[in-house]
């Protein structure tokens, strides 16, 4: 009964990443206008074309309206009350000192993300991002030997402008949606990954995002390009301090997958979900999309969503390469007053493309959890195949679980299947566990973990452990 003890052990914990780091942070003035964008661009020392990209995006954003179709009660966001750039490493630059502030190292240590090379053996390269700036990227040299580029977005713009220019905005154009336009205008740091042809990335790459400063938003941008025959597994983790106001997080993730290449993208999202009364929490409004350009390319999204007051995102795949395959595995857990409207989009354009969607929603407390997914098969996507399954588990009588699948099929030899169930934990299962001396609370933990196993098994090892812990912690108090 190892899992059970485990569940119990962690069930006693609250949101443990809620601490703040007291560090000198340079924050630019609140508000968003053309000048803000110029300031950000200047601070990052960006070339003219990137500034132009931002300004164009800003112009488009001005003409757009915040969408309201989500099954969410969104608090009003005052885009002028947010600061769009916060740099916790600013002091360092002033002192011309190459060392990272020990305060920052401590912070990431506390989060379990060691920035020092002493963990070189752990087999993971980390890009640690706090607020708007990448603090450090580890293992870069080892990767560089293989020709792999793994660095912060800012560095990539400086060192590999031709790659960035070629791929930036090619998967998620600025005018894609309201939040994508906002991000394109004000994006700060994120990670850039390029895996050259026929290279298998020897270690997991990961980025850890942390919001620290008050009244700021995080607008990171991740771009992953996986060239022909290459492979990479990429992890993303995120936390934020407990604040009683909402914090905005509007990121973009773009992935380009070439012929015979494979990308695995895993997220464990644990932004601050707000307190038991629904105060505060991060608004997680992210656009994530992968473009499977090459033949027989593969992309797999795995996400464990336990945090954020509001999660509104649809990691998507555009399958344009013939024979490409896409997968989406998701566990979304909401508790207290959290709201999630998440799912995926699978756009089949190429022939013999295949996609799988496995979504598990768990709602507890007074939360609302929705799955929304689109499967579109274009007239040319002969032999396209999709299988979707989305299950919802309800814990507590005041929560909601919703499923909104969309299927647009424009081809006669495509096979699209969808199934969904919604139910609570069955009395029989609980009774069976109770009979064997397992308390109800433990039994629920056990059943939930078993329920989410399909997805958690897809996560890389280190993340799987964290994800299981998270599920247990977030269910605390909702059982019984």
């Amino acid at each position, binding site marked *: 009964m190892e899992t059970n003890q485990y569940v119990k052990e962690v069930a006693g914990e609250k949101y443990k990443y809620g601490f703040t780091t007291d560090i000198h942070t340079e924050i630019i003035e609140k508000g968003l206008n053309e000048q803000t964008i110029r300031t950000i661009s200047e601070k990052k020392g960006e070339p003219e074309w990137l500034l132009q990209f931002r300004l164009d995006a800003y112009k488009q954003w001005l003409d757009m309206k915040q969408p309201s179709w989500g099954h969410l009660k969104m608090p009003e966001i005052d885009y002028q009350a947010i600061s769009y750039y916060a740099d916790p490493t600013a002091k360092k630059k002033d002192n011309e000192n190459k060392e990272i502030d020990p305060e920052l190292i401590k912070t990431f240590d506390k989060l379990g993300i060691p920035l020092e090379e002493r963990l070189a053996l752990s087999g993971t390269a980390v890009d640690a991002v706090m607020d708007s700036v990448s603090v450090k990227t580890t293992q870069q040299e080892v990767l560089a030997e293989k020709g792999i580029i793994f660095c912060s977005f800012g560095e990539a713009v400086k060192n590999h402008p031709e790659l960035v220019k070629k791929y930036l905005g090619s998967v998620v154009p600025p005018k894609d949606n309201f939040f994508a336009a906002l991000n394109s205008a004000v994006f700060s740091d994120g990670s850039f990954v390029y895996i050259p042809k026929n290279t298998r990335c020897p270690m997991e790459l990961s980025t850890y995002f942390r919001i620290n400063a008050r009244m700021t938003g995080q607008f990171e941008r991740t771009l992953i390009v996986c060239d022909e025959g290459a492979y990479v597994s990429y992890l993303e983790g995120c936390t934020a301090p407990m604040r009683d106001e909402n914090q905005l997080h509007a990121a973009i993730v773009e992935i380009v997958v070439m012929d015979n290449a494979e990308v695995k993208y895993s997220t464990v999202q644990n932004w601050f979900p707000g307190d038991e009364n629904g105060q505060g929490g991060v608004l997680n409004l992210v656009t994530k999309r992968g473009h499977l350009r090459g033949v027989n390319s593969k992309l797999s999204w795995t996400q464990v969503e336990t945090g954020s007051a509001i999660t509104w995102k649809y990691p998507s795949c555009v399958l344009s390469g013939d024979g490409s395959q896409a997968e989406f595995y998701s566990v979304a857990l909401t508790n207290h007053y959290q709201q999630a409207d998440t799912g995926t989009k699978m756009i089949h354009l190429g022939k013999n493309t295949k996609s799988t969607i496995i979504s598990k929603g768990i709602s507890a407390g007074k939360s609302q959890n929705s799955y929304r997914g689109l499967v579109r098969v274009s007239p040319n996507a002969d032999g396209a195949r999709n299988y979707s399954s989305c299950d919802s588990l309800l814990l507590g009588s005041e929560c*909601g*679980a919703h499923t909104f*699948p969309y*299927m647009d*099929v424009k081809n006669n030899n*495509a*096979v*699209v299947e969808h199934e969904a169930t*919604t139910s609570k934990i069955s009395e029989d299962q609980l009774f069976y566990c109770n009979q064997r001396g397992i308390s109800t609370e433990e039994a629920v933990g056990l059943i939930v973990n078993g329920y989410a196993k399909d997805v958690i098994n897809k996560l890389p090892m280190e993340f799987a452990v964290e994800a299981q812990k998270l599920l247990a912690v977030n269910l605390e108090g909702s059982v019984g």
Partner: protein
Amino acid sequence: MTQSEKQYIDLYEECREVIKANSAEALNAPRELAFKHFMSAGFPTLKKEEYKYTDVQKAFAPDYGLNFKRIDIPTDPFEVFRCNVPNLSTLLYFVVNDLCFKDNPTFNDGSGIYLGSIKQAPERAKEAFTQHYTKHADTASDGITALNTALAQDAFMVYVPRHQRLNKTLQVINLLHAKTDLMVNRRVMIVLEEGAQATLLFCDHAMDNVSFLATQVTEIYCGNNSHLDMYEMEENHTQCTRFSNTYVNVGADCNVSINNITLYNGTTRNTTRVTLQGEHSEVTLNGCVIADKNQKVDNNTLIEHQVPNCKSNELYRYVLDDSAVGAFAGRILVQPGAQKTVSEENNANLCATKQARMYSQPMLEIYADDVKCSHGSTVGVLDENALFYMQQRGIPTEEARMLLKHAFISQVSEKIRLEPLRERLNYLVNKRFRGQLDKCTGCSLCK
């Protein structure tokens, strides 16, 4: 305001008095309010989630004639439709365009059951009508319902008083008959009081080769312990556009089954809204669609569980050929506190050609925890293995395909509780797949 909305607003303002003067009195009361609602809401646009797949503006844009003055179109439907579904003796009623046929039989078995136009209804039925009219079909929520309420002049009423049972199946034939393009606004009211029981069959037919636009609003009230079987069969032609909104209000301990069969049509949009307001009721919604050429069929359903311990089943199957477009959106809404709800939804679709389009959207919206809800949806092609098996046994490909398609649809027809109708439907489906039901030539049910 769009051009097509303006057209109807002007028309109403111009003909307001004529409409009222030639209308059944009971329909006049909410007319002005409904018109106001239409003016403010207008037609639903493609941006509205529920109408994403049907362009309402476009459907209402052409200039159709309307028969506000209730000019009698000389016809004797009894001549055209001689018999009923074999082995099923029905009570046969006609609605010609939106006018209840003047020589409809009068039903009187002493039980107080009333069938027919609201104009001739006895006091009790009229009272029931007024009590329920526009109470279930909310004119503020839907532009088409509002327009229908503003323009409708006659209503077909089915009134079954307490503990009474309609022994025979009622068959209402909706005939579309005109020399020029015509718009009709039909209204149906079905009131089953406590413990009442009825089986109803509605058939839609177009007699002439002109364009028809039909709006139909059906309000159904099922009192506690009542039992309703309703079948709607549409066999029009490709120039017909039909918007049918059905609102069903279900009390406690009821058993209600609504079946929507689209065999032949031009553009069809069926909206079904079921509200379960009493415990221990069961609702079944079934539908099958066979469409080819440029036909469009859009079924939009909502089953709302407001109370605990109810059960709902939904099954829709589509077979799409040529450039047909099918859409299905089924939403099951379980309100807070509606515990022990059991709900199942299934939508399966066959696309036979590359040009056929299917949009499927089975949705669950659940706010209670002790429920069992599931939905499934598939879009696909005929099973190659099954085809191969049949060809091996000397069945030609075309025949084998037909057999499989028929088997696919029969999952829905098997749910029909009226046996003769079930057989008849199987026959019609077969005929339809063979392309022999190309054009409506009167009531195929009766041939």
